């Protein structure tokens, strides 16, 4: 029984991460920019959040702690995503290349920064770990055997907001037009550059939130050398499986979250443990599932038509 609760808890928290980040990807792609740098954005968001927890939130009440961490993580993500915006929207750089660069830069920068802070405190111990035991308690609520994390609720709220903005507001519909046919959007007076910037920055905010949520999922300290283990890309797979639609993304995230959670708790299930499958197989599970899912769903993909193509005003 406790194992099932644990499985549910991990499924929900990982699904929250994937929902947040995939929604980020969804906004960016609907505006017409492929954001492969989500992984790096997650790391930077996590770094911002973790440092905020360590330094800003000492002695703050729980509500304020949560709000501060959320704000700092989202803002770090936005600032970092601006690097993608400058390169891909204004300078028309190759979006795949810049995204990859952001991923590498995210992990390297986070490691350098954290190690610098740690060595300044104690030259003999240059580790890339940030510890945030105290502040983490604000995010967690024990309900019997189930550890409720406020991020589960935050993810749902953001999902609803994201859905409403995308489909029910003028802004959302205009942004989607820029991802489908930017020239047509421009001809009716929509500024494609502004809309794409909006998409990229929103994706930065969601990515940053997803990042801090990811490192809060399990342990109470994080080693930044490890990055976020491909979660940014898993989120992109979730987004594709969800056909770029928020409500389907949430369902896809639950599926992927379940398989990711399984690798944490499989040993608690008697029948799974007795199968004697090595633990690495469970570790691989989310990646294998996503390959299979992509193979079957990408053919009739409903990707925004103009994604990945730099917008050039003079082209028709």
């Amino acid at each position: 029984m406790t194992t099932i609760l644990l499985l549910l808890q991990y499924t929900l928290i990982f699904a929250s991460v994937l929902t947040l980040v995939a929604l980020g990807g969804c906004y960016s792609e609907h505006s017409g920019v492929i954001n492969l740098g989500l992984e790096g954005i997650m790391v930077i968001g996590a770094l911002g959040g973790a440092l905020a927890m360590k330094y800003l939130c000492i002695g703050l009440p729980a509500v304020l702690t949560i709000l501060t961490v959320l704000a700092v993580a989202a803002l770090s993500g936005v600032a970092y995503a601006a690097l993608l915006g400058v390169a891909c929207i204004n300078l028309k750089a190759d979006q795949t290349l810049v995204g990859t660069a952001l991923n590498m830069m995210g992990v390297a920068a986070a490691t350098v920064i954290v190690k610098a802070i740690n060595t300044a405190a104690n030259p003999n111990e240059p580790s890339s770990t940030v510890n945030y035991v105290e502040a983490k308690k604000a995010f967690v609520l024990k309900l019997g055997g189930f550890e409720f994390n406020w991020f589960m609720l935050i993810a749902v709220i953001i999902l609803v907001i994201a859905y409403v903005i995308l489909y029910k507001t003028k802004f959302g519909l205009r942004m989607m037009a820029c991802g489908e046919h930017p020239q047509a959007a421009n001809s009716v007076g929509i500024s494609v550059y502004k809309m794409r910037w909006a998409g990229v920055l929103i994706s930065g905010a969601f990515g940053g939130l997803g990042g801090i949520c990811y490192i809060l999922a399990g342990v109470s300290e994080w080693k930044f050398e490890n990055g976020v283990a491909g979660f940014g890309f898993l989120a992109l797979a979730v987004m594709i499986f969800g056909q770029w639609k928020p409500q389907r993304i949430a369902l896809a995230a639950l599926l992927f979250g379940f398989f990711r959670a399984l690798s944490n708790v499989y040993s608690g299930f008697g029948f799974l443990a007795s199968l004697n499958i090595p633990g690495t197989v469970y570790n691989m599970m989310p990646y294998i599932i996503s390959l299979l899912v992509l193979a079957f769903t990408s053919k009739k993909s409903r990707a925004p038509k103009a994604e990945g193509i730099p917008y050039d005003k003079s082209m028709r």
Partner: protein
Amino acid sequence: MKKIFRNEGVQSFIASLLCIVAGLLIGYIVLLFINPSGASEAIGNVIKNFFTYSRDTLRWKNFGNTLVKTAPLLMCSLSILFCYKVGLFNIGAAGQYVAGSCASLYAALVWGWGWLPCMLLAIVVAAVFGVVVGILKAYCNVNEVISGIMLNWIGLYTTNTLLSQVKEEASPYTEYLSVKNPASILPTLGLSELFGKDNKVTIAIPIAIVLAVAIMVILNMTKLGYELKATGLNKNAAKYAGMAEKRNIIFTLAIGGALAGLGGALLYLTDAERWMCTASSVPGMGFNGIAAAFLGGLNPIGAIFSSYFIQHISVGGSHVDLTKYSSEISDLIAAIIIYLCGFVFFVKYAFNLWLARQDNKKDHRFTKEETDAVLKTQQKGGESK
């Protein structure tokens, strides 16, 4: 003078140099922020790498060791640039490199094979990794970046599981080839003597350079190369012109996989490094290959030099004062360089546009003789009517 600037190669070279200078400058600024007192020395050590040693023998030895790690990096960057020319972003090179490393080490340590079969197995296994990405791309329309990343992680976990069978009892590393199966170590052909003995310089380095030249020949001088590039430029046009565009995509990724996989074998079969069976992240070699490929202007010969440079500063990173800074500063510089490489196409485009505009201005400013000549021809034309 202007003609020189118009040359594609010269432009690429200047652009790469600018990227390097800007990357190092930003790295230096980061170091200044961390601790201003030793920043100049630290960035100096990153650039100097083995020159930080005062003894000549040590310098040669460490130069050799930098070269040993350049060979696999060059293979990864060749893999990436070959696929990029065909319009595919082979980020899966990192996983293909892991697959090649795993296959060669497994064959050497478990089955006791010699170096040549080990190398061939690495090529085949890694090519299979590439083919999977290729099939998914060609027949299922799966973005090669995402499937590549997924395979990177699958490859990493599989490798950890398989190589755990041959790891040392006291450490997470695999056993030394020199202890278990010396026949699987690549022959040196006297090359290590050149670098003052006691190092791991083997035929890996000439193999990598020869392959770089081969890739250049294939891309620029064969029908196959032209077909592949045509597929990359416009898949539909290539199909219309009668090329098997699906087969070309799969074939390209197979070659890309083979190159990256061979890279893995060229490092691990020298015994210079051992696999850590508890590795929790994909080795950076494949990702640094992206930096090397773009820094080299997507030219195989350029890749030889850029790979060396990237490896040079990566090794140089370990020479910084570790009580103040971290060695990851060189990873950061490499990542900044890739980011800046994204701008190269735009800057080149803007520069050429500017050159063309200069030309136009000149064309419109006629000299007196020219104007007269034009007027004369017009008059003549009028008369003949």
